[in-house]
């Protein structure tokens, strides 16, 4: 964006916009369109999952028992709370409370960190047990279940790509935190915080579906 930034969220909008409001709305619409592409991206994975469920219902039912719903549930709670702290960070930015923006973003970052730690524990447990994708699958109790490795292919790809989104989000949070601490945002300019919020809530949204689909099928 070809505009300059000054103190406390006072900022000249780019010359091709009528005013700052219009620029904000345009950015936000662009963000929503990006989120549409994200839904389509994930929908391929959800489709793969649906095919598994339709063609191998017994296999999916047997395999999901190896996922720990307590871990999944904990991560659901952690991500929801992080959405809340993110929403508070956006409101604080709109009110020009730089210190609060930084604190709430830090809280969000910590939640994201907890999420990744839990994921790490889950992954290492699965790798250790041989609950792995496709032909790598070597978990003895389920070896007799036909095509069981496919469930873990879908599990690792879906949660892996979601986890990648979390990691990218963590990077973005750090960046926006730094900008907030420089007092860049205020009532007239908080676009980056808002966009980060939309992205982060979307990551939460995906997990809201992944949790019951992967951990709670019955």
């Amino acid at each position, binding site marked *: 964006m070809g505009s300059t930034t000054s103190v406390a969220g006072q900022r000249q*909008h780019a010359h091709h916009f009528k005013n700052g409001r219009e620029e904000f709305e345009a950015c936000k619409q662009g963000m929503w369109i990006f989120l549409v592409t994200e839904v389509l991206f994930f929908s391929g994975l959800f*489709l793969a999952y649906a095919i598994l469920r339709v063609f*191998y219902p017994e296999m999916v039912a047997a395999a999901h028992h190896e996922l720990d719903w307590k871990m999944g549930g904990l991560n659901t709670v952690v991500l929801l709370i992080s959405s809340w702290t993110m929403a508070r960070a956006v409101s604080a930015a709109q009110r020009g409370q730089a210190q609060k923006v930084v604190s709430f973003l830090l809280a969000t970052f910590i939640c994201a960190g907890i999420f990744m730690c839990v994921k790490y524990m889950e992954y290492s447990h699965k790798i250790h047990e041989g609950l792995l994708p496709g032909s790598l699958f070597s978990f003895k109790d389920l070896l007799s279940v036909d095509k069981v490795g496919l469930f873990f292919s879908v599990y690792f790809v879906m949660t892996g790509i979601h986890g990648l989104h979390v990691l990218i989000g963590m990077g973005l949070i750090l960046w926006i935190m730094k900008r907030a601490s420089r007092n860049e945002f205020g009532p007239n300019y908080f676009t980056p915080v808002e966009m980060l919020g939309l992205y982060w809530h979307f990551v939460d949204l995906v997990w809201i579906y992944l949790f019951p689909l992967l951990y*709670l099928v019955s």
Partner: protein
Amino acid sequence: MSHHDHHEGHHHVLSDSTALKTILALLSLTVITVAIARVDLGVLNFPVAMFVASVKAVIVCSIFMGLKYENRENTVIFSTSLLFMLIFFILTFGDLLTRGDVYVKGQIIPAELQAAGPSKFSKPWIESPEIIAHGKGLFAAQCTSCHGDGGAGNGPAAAGLNPKPRNFTVGEGWKNGRKGSQIFGTLTKGLNTMPAFGSLPSEDRWALAHYVRTLGPHSAEKDSDADLAKVGVDPNQEGGGGSAEKSIPLEAAIEILSES
């Protein structure tokens, strides 16, 4: 920028108390999701879980993401993604669930061959004129491209193959052997460039084995009970011995999806 200021409407700021109520609602719904999963609602489990997840998703979108507080444009934009997702699902399942033909590792087995229906042969490992006739039909459809019409190993596709397809009219040079159970084994597992036909119902594989034996010199070698046991057949029990895969292998389905 003062002359533009009257264009700049007021941004909605989410109040702290609304944010708090929202997160409490979301957490309660998560508890409900987990609780419901532990109760058996039969077929309802899945729709209920998806319904609760969707309620949560709507709350996140409308309040945290603010769709509720702005004009409809972004809601419409985001909804289109769900519409396209629906089309994606409907077209894929409309296709996958209505295929008469079954795909096996990139090769198509026509419906009339894989839909053998209820078993016609109670003990298919026993040679009979009927099962040989059945095998003849299968052979013409599945094997002649490589092995030739008369089974001499001179089908149109044979030229490009190394090793060459077996010549069934001679008794020598068989790697796995000419007994019924041995040919059955070859068909189940494949042999080098000879593809596996394990996806055919086992009685079809037996029928092919019996037919292939008629193409060469008469062989007195018969299957012993031990030979039959090697390919999973209990001679005292009726049934095909070894099962066929009736469903579409998923790898094949995914392959097809990724190609399109």
